[in-house]
């Protein structure tokens, strides 16, 4: 039986969960104002059809992202692939690219008359489809696979190599051992990645709109865009909340209650890397191909835009870059700290209450970001007016938005840290806080880093909350890119977008370079 959690932990968990539920509360307040006509609109067949097509897309993107990320995560953690750290930072980068930019990039590259359409056709290479379902699948898989990639990496790094070695000593072939031992142990990582990718697809508007795929978020966005009708929009938002809760319940049901930590004596250590041998070249090809499409292509198009409108270019972007790093960095730290009580409760004290607290972090995640931003406007101006318009307000918005990314990563890491280690330390006379700080926290390192990297990257590109809640005049790289593309000035957008990607790469590189050194043993 799990022990009951201490009261400070429960209080912290409840406080964070309350914050995470703000968007849902806001939607309920606004939906209460809806008239009969709005309810009738909600239940028409088209709403359901859109929901169906969006869920289908979410499922397809989740499966493709997982399939793409597993080999990439394995190659960068378990093998002697040359340049593993560089590959890792590059493979994460698509997360930092605002989806409205990646949509434009895709069209500019592969659309009719696009930069690559002609050359590819001449070479006889089929041009990837850019419109409708295939286009949306392609664009979203390319921009979301890093969620899986980072989660799976953290899972692989935290896994005890002794388990794999035991399997090999029992006569399993390497391939069989991989499928029978390594992959099943990654179940929590898959679950956390799937939640992030699947729910993200529900919320996405930018990419889906550009590739002309009919998605549910579009009709919500529309209500704000054109109709200024907050109550109908709120009803649609609540429908997404209901779907999210259903997905969360389903996920709990699928993942079961298995334990994932090692129970053997002795310390965990690093396993010997798998030598790729003659597979080295094809493996490099895979990484290179994904990086070429997810990073090389956007950078290429951005450079092309910048060159096309040479002279229309931008002045210095240093101030915006500093602001971006400051806000995203603080958001990353804040998110992993706030996620900790939820992950601890969910993993160490499982039970209905803890589970609900942990899951509440995800409730707002599938909502279009504008809804989330407005809920914080609502909360800020009415509840904490003295914070309204300050950086604190923006960080709160980032926290609510990105909390699930941190919770998932910490959860995955914590599941693989044996509680017995903490108990052993306690018997050696350490107090619980000291045990926590000296044993549990260091062992969770892959989770901390993956969570912080995810939040940092996605906060770098965040737009609606940044526009509405940042202190006035607080310009970030993402707002600069937005302000240039809004009127179709792509040449002006390009330099800021390139700096955004470069700074993100540096940030993630720096974070993940801690991985190896911090690893115990």
């Amino acid at each position, binding site marked *: 039986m799990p022990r009951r959690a201490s009261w400070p932990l429960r209080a912290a968990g409840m406080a964070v969960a309350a914050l995470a539920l703000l968007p849902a509360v806001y939607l309920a307040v606004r939906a209460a104002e809806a008239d009969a006509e709005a309810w009738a609109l909600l239940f028409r067949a088209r709403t359901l059809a859109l929901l169906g097509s969006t869920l289908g897309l979410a499922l397809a993107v989740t499966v493709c992202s997982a399939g793409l990320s597993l080999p990439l995560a394995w190659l960068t953690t378990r093998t002697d692939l040359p340049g593993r750290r560089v590959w890792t930072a590059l493979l994460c980068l698509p997360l930092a690219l605002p989806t409205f930019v990646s949509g434009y990039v895709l*069209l500019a590259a592969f659309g009719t008359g696009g930069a690559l359409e002609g050359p590819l056709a001449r070479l006889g290479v089929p041009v990837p489809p850019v419109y409708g379902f295939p286009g949306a699948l392609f664009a979203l898989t390319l921009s979301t696979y890093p969620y899986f990639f980072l989660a799976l990496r953290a899972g692989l790094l935290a896994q005890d190599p002794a388990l794999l070695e035991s399997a090999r000593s029992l006569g399993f072939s390497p391939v069989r051992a991989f499928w029978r031992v390594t992959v099943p142990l990654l179940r929590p990582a898959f679950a956390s990645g799937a939640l992030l990718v699947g729910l993200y697809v529900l919320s996405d508007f930018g990419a889906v709109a550009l590739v002309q795929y009919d998605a549910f978020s579009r009709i919500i966005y529309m209500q704000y865009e054109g109709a*200024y009708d907050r109550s109908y929009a709120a009803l649609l938002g609540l429908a997404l909340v209901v779907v999210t809760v259903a997905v969360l319940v389903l996920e709990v049901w699928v993942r079961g209650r298995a334990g994932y930590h090692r129970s053997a004596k002795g310390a965990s250590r690093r396993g010997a890397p798998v030598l790729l041998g003659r597979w080295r070249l094809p493996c490099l090809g895979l990484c290179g191909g994904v990086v070429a499409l997810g990073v090389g292509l956007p950078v290429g198009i951005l450079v092309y835009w910048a060159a096309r*409108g040479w002279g229309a270019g931008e002045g210095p972007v240093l101030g915006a870059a500093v602001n971006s790093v400051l806000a995203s960095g603080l958001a990353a730290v804040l998110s992993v700290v706030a996620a900790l009580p939820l992950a601890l409760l969910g993993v160490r004290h499982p039970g209905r209450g803890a589970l609900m607290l942990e899951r509440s972090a995800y409730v707002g995640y599938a909502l279009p970001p504008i809804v989330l931003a407005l809920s914080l406007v609502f909360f800020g101006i*009415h509840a904490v007016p003295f914070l309204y318009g300050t950086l604190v307000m923006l960080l709160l918005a980032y926290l609510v938005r990105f909390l699930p990314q941190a919770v998932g990563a910490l959860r995955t890491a914590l599941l693989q840290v044996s509680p017995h280690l903490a108990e052993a330390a306690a018997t050696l006379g350490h107090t619980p806080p000291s045990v926590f700080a000296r044993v549990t926290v260091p062992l969770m390192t892959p989770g901390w880093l993956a969570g912080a990297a995810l939040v940092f990257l996605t906060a770098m590109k965040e737009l*609606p909350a940044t*526009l509405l809640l940042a202190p*006035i005049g607080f310009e970030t790289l993402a707002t600069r890119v937005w302000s240039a593309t809004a009127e*179709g000035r792509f040449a002006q957008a390009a330099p800021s977008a390139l700096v955004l990607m470069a700074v993100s790469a540096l940030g993630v590189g720096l974070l993940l370079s801690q991985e190896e050194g911090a690893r115990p043993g």
Partner: protein
Amino acid sequence: MSRLLLPLIALLLTSAVHAAETLTVYSGRNERLVGPLYKAFTAKTGIEVKVRYGETPQLVATLMEEGAKSPADVFVAQDAGALGALAKAQLLQPLPKAQVEKVDARFRSPEALWVGLSGRARVVAYNTAKVKPEQLPTGIQGFTEPAWKGRIGWAPTNGSFQAFVTALRLMKGDAAAKKWLEGVKANAPRTYKNNAAIVEALGRGEIDVGFVNHYYLYAAKKDQGEALPVANHFLAAGDPGTLVNVSGAAVLKSSKKAEAAQQLIAFLLDTQAQQHFAQETFEYPLVPGVAAASALPALSKVGSPDLDLSKLEDLKGTLRLLQETGVL
């Protein structure tokens, strides 16, 4: 008498300026386009301007959430419908009559709750390599002809397109608007996110014609060079497809700095600012006496339908129609 009065007025004015040293503006118009104007205003009057830039509809939603507690003094919007929605929500305070009357009655609120700053005409942009100007219809009705199958681009989720459909409804009735939407839909138009994406696609030759606002073409040419094979086609005067919508400004009811706020709006209606709109953004200046960019036909020749732009706020019916026809 005047010896006493003048210093007194001067004192009152300076104290008013002191009390209102900082204005907060929510700007649904881009920093690159209007930022220099706010700076010029500060240089001229000494009144600081803090600007929150954002997308017009999202700022409207924000202002509605903030209500009476809003820190904003002035709202600068990209279209009249947004201002109409705020007026309807009773969040705006009236402007001095003399101020709004500088602008033609078609381009301001009848209750003086907002005033237009610049005009933006609907046009049909076309790819010059694939379409000759004489092949283009003189009215939007022409685009329901089968000859245009697979050649049209539109942005039904975009505010400016919806404002146009609202105008169509107001002018010709819902049934006619529905017929037009269905007619174009039968021609399998490509759906884009916004005007900029349509002009970009026209440049690549992905589509032959697109329903957009007139000035995106000039932004695209600044971006991609004059050789871009895209041009604007103005439909016949009085056609709903020539609707001139406006960007405009209003003072929030919650503002305690109405005087300074009105000063800013007066500045935006002044010659310098109006010329800026004409030359930098290729929009139509709305105050008589300032000429439009030379590449454009005169505003009087565009022949925008006579319509109370405040009514463009009524988008519920338009959205319902777009949903009924399956366009959305």
